[in-house]
């Protein structure tokens, strides 16, 4: 303990308390300032976020790995137990898929013939980058994921993020070695979509619930639950036709969509680089070869 009661201490203590109070108020003001700057999309705040995410990405990646390993081991055991039933199901699936393959081949041939007849310009080349999820959204008010692939792997803002079954979000922030994906269920997510059967365009808007809503559909459109919703490709870097989900309910407040993706177990994601080279080419030369460690599939 420090000696109390000396003449210096008598003046120093209140001064110190006042300085502390002032510093505290400055910090509060700093936090409010950050909120306002962040809301205004200041580049400075984004740089700060990206730098911190990049710095912590290796630590998070190291922490996520053992948990995933344990989880996989449990899955292995479960799969062994269910082997017979699984086998039977796969045999049926296989038979069904062979039929579909036949249909797809016929359609492919027809498509080639018709495209050639119409001199159709094929759409741009698609690349996909695989990344591991290293951080879940920690909180009740955001729906996002941190992925351990960044600019050096060819990830860019606005790219579509998909898992096996369908679209889960888009890239919102990109660092050198990490990127943040905003999920389609987030409050701020707006994705241009199209109803697969009727080709009606709409916006898929998240509202922090599990079932995002469809906005701006034509009035008097009778949607059946179960109808597939896919990306429309309107307005940029999204490829058209990515599956998102099916209509879950057509209640008040507009139809809601049940995403195909299983949110609870997203371990790896694919980031689809649809390429906007045609538009951005002269301004921003595309990286010749991504140097990253991540698998890049052409």
């Amino acid at each position, binding site marked *: 303990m420090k000696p109390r009661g000396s003449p210096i201490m008598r003046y120093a203590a209140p001064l110190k308390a006042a300085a502390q109070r002032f510093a*505290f108020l400055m910090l509060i003001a700093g*936090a409010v300032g*950050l909120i306002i700057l962040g809301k205004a999309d200041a580049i400075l*705040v984004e740089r700060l976020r990206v730098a*911190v995410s990049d710095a912590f990405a290796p630590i998070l990646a190291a922490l996520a790995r053992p948990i995933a390993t344990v989880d996989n081991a449990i899955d292995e055991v479960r799969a062994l137990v269910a082997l017979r039933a699984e086998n039977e199901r796969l045999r049926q699936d296989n038979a069904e898929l062979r039929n579909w393959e036949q249909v797809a081949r016929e359609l492919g041939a027809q498509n080639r013939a018709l495209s050639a007849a119409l001199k159709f310009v094929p759409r741009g080349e698609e690349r996909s980058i695989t990344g591991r999820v290293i*951080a879940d959204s920690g*909180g009740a008010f955001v729906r996002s994921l*941190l992925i351990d692939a960044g600019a050096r792997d060819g990830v860019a803002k606005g790219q579509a993020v998909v898992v096996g079954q369908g679209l889960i979000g888009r890239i919102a922030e990109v660092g050198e070695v990490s990127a943040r994906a905003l999920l389609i269920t987030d409050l701020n997510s707006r994705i241009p979509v199209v109803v697969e059967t009727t080709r009606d365009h709409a916006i898929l808007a998240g*509202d922090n619930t599990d079932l995002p809503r469809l906005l701006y559909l034509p009035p008097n459109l009778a949607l059946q639950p179960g109808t597939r919703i896919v990306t429309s490709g309107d307005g940029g870097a999204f490829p058209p036709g990515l599956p998102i989900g099916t209509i879950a309910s057509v209640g008040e407040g507009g139809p809601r969509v049940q995403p195909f993706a299983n949110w609870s177990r*997203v371990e790896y994601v694919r980031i689809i680089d649809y390429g906007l080279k045609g538009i951005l080419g002269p301004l921003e030369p595309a990286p010749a070869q991504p140097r990253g460690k991540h698998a890049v599939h052409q």
Partner: protein
Amino acid sequence: MMSGLAFQLDRAARRLFPFAFSVLLVVLSVVPLPVPGYGLVVPSFALMAVYYWAIHRPDLLPAPAVFALGLLEDILSGAPTGLNTLVLLLVYGAMRNQRRPFLGKPFAVMWFGFLVVAPAAIFAHWLFASALAGRIIPAHTAFVQLLLTLAFYPWLTWLFAAGQRAFLRQS
């Protein structure tokens, strides 16, 4: 007895415990667990840490450290920048001023205090988040998060207290 430099280093490392452990908790709270929906209702470990240290050792978790902690949580969890920062600072400020009634009291008193502080903090968080979004955000996940935070608090307090006994007895 240790020599001067070694003692100083040892002391500094020990005094770093509250902040370092809090940072670890924030990082752990965003690590994806294979539990459906866990990421949405993960207990607010940073809130527990700030509450505990603001009462027991505010000198070792000063306001700038709380600021850094909140900012880290905002960035790693993808929340709007400054939101957790503001909430944690407010909790810290309130508890640092009101710490005397809690010092040396049994655990039940601390927990009772937390039963008041945690709902207030999560409500403030929801309020700020809704104001920022410009609309009312559904709050049921926040409610589950609150329940989990209250349920986890005794365990974390036990860890904090064990750490305090192990590392901070002499200083």
